[in-house]
């Protein structure tokens, strides 16, 4: 089915992306997305040292220096701003790695070449062993997240309550850091040190635009990440795989963000249209039948508020218009008596609020003001519509 040489890169990156996305969601929710960037750069000296010893030492070496980096970030964060701390560790560890690499370049060029593949990633040479390793890790990650879901939820969103319950927050954080380091260290084989942070962030961003529940995010993000990995590994022919995977993940994130922005915009448009219709009703109620325009009239007739274009309101229409005017004038009374606004200014606010006030708010207003019969402009306030 899938070519044997393609299997390693394809499925290996797939499982890697799944793990990265899941842990990325947890970092995203804590607003610590950039810790992945610091960790992946901190892993680099470990990669180089590991390469100097033996091929199999690369990943453990990277893991060790990544953890060292985290410790250093913690130490620095007590002494300076957290963004500066991250940047210091980012660059200094990378610099140390670079220095060691320059020595390695002379002493052991083959090892040097191997360590370079971890800078930008080299998915194409991944084997079945890699695939099995990443699949196992993805399984571990999924199990961890599923079993500890309640604890994770609490530790991220309600720390005081978690403390009251006696949940070991330090323990959860420690495990999370270790998983993060592992995910990054394994991931840099495919997308490289520089781009790994993106693989953590992009799927989480995409997932967030579709849901606000942590559980759904933890399912959606791996889907997005895995999809990017599959598409990227499959289609990146004469391009390096890592960047392509990342660009696809970023594209998914952008599409999701566009979707949300579009929905927000449409919601506004719908509300404006609603206000426009209600204003039409008010007009006919106050001043008598008028031509409201083809589309408006058609819609109002459809809703059963208007008899025909240019015609009078129906009974339902009269009731609705009356209610709107009532809310308008009630709000005006509220502004002028309780907040001391002058009569000229209350009208504009009431023009907006009349479309928004709910029945519950209406009751509250009446409680505050007793049942007023006149508004600040000496106009009568219509009766409550049943």
């Amino acid at each position, binding site marked *: 089915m899938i070519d044997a040489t393609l299997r390693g890169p394809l499925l290996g990156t797939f499982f890697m992306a799944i793990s990265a996305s899941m842990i990325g969601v947890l970092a995203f929710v804590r607003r610590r997305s*950039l810790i992945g*960037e610091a960790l992946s750069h901190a892993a680099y000296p470990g990669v180089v040292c590991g390469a100097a010893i033996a091929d199999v030492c690369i990943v453990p070496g990277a893991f060790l220096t990544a953890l060292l980096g985290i410790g250093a970030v913690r130490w620095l964060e007590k*002494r300076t701003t957290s963004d500066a701390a991250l940047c210091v560790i980012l660059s*200094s560890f990378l610099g*140390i790695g670079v220095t060691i690499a*320059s*020595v390695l370049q002379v002493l052991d060029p083959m090892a040097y070449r191997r360590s370079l593949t971890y800078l930008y990633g080299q998915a194409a040479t991944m084997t079945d062993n890699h695939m099995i390793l990443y699949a196992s890790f993805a399984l571990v990650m999924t199990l961890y997240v599923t079993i500890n879901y309640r604890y994770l939820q609490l530790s991220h969103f309600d720390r005081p309550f978690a403390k009251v319950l006696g949940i070991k927050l330090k323990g959860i954080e420690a495990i999370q850091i270790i998983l993060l380091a592992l995910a990054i260290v394994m991931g840099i084989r495919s997308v490289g040190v520089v781009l790994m942070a993106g693989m953590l962030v992009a799927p989480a961003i995409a997932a967030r635009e579709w849901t606000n529940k942590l559980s759904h995010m933890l399912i959606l993000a791996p889907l997005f990440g895995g999809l990017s990995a599959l598409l990227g590994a499959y289609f990146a022919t004469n391009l390096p795989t890592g960047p392509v995977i*990342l660009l696809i993940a970023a594209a998914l*994130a952008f599409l999701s963000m566009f979707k949300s922005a579009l929905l927000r915009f449409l919601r506004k448009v719908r509300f404006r249209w609603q206000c426009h219709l209600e204003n039409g009703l008010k007009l006919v109620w106050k001043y008598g039948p008028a031509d409201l325009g083809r589309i408006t009239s058609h819609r109002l007739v459809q809703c059963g508020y208007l008899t025909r274009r240019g015609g009078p309101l129906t009974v339902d229409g009269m009731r609705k218009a009356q209610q709107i005017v009532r809310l308008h004038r009630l709000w005006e009374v509220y502004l002028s008596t309780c907040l001391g606004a002058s009569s000229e200014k209350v009208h504009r606010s009431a023009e907006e609020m009349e479309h928004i006030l709910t029945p519950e708010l209406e009751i509250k207003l009446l409680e505050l003001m007793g049942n007023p019969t006149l508004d600040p402009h000496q106009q009568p306030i219509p009766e409550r519509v049943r």
Partner: protein
Amino acid sequence: MNPYSGDNFFSFFGTLLTRLFTFHGPLVSDEVQLIVLGLISMMAATLGSFLVLRKNTMLANSLSHTILLGIAVTYLAMKGVDFYQMSMGALLMAALVTALLTTLFTELLTRFFHLQEDASIGLVFSTLFALGIVVVTLFAKNTHIGTEAIMGNVDALHPHDVKQVMLISGLVLGVIALLFRPFRLTTFDPTFARGIGVNSSVFHYILMILTALAAISAFRAVGAFLFLALLVIPPLIARAFTKRLGTLIVLASGIGVVASMLAVALSRHLLSEAGLALSTAGVEVVLLTLAIGGQRLPQSSAAKSC
């Protein structure tokens, strides 16, 4: 025929001083490295002082990633520009493209898409860097970007690079000196600045453009990512000694320059004595790292910004 070959750490400075005072002939590679690294460190320390105080260091990190894309775009736009012989015009254009892309993109994500700040920075730099790699691979495969982008190659510097770095540092330091008071104001009291009608946004963009310019001119010497170390570490070390902005900048520049000198001397020493050709930029970062490790940085309780 390098007069420094065979020198150890201390005789390096001896040779340097003799050559200085006897105005001996043209610059050799060690001196070129010294001057270039020194100027870059000064620029970086000055810009970095502001960046650290404004908490924009992660944005500077983004910039250093986006540089790859900026340079690639410039390369395409000005056909035939060699990465290693970039003219001032090309440099300026690349810097402008980089800075504007990064900053505008990040602001688009935070303002229009309502994305949280840390995630937007992360998305921006990884996307633009990935794009840069793709562009370079597709259109500029014959140029050796790869590892040199990250590490730089101080030993490939040429005397005429000195002139270019001098011009750029002059420009950067000059602009900062000229606009020192607005920069200081918008850094420490943005609300007051807004109140008296100073547009903080403009100065933010200017600072980003200057940083991108400095980063690009330093690109070949120290590489894109090590420049960040020169930006961030000297101001943090200097912060342990002073609270005044002016002193901070001067002290940070001093630390940067000293680190450069020690780095060049050390690499020369290790090359002569032990035959180890270390990356000089890497050595400088290691020295700075050790220096910051030894510092008793002030315990600030108002540290958490994320």
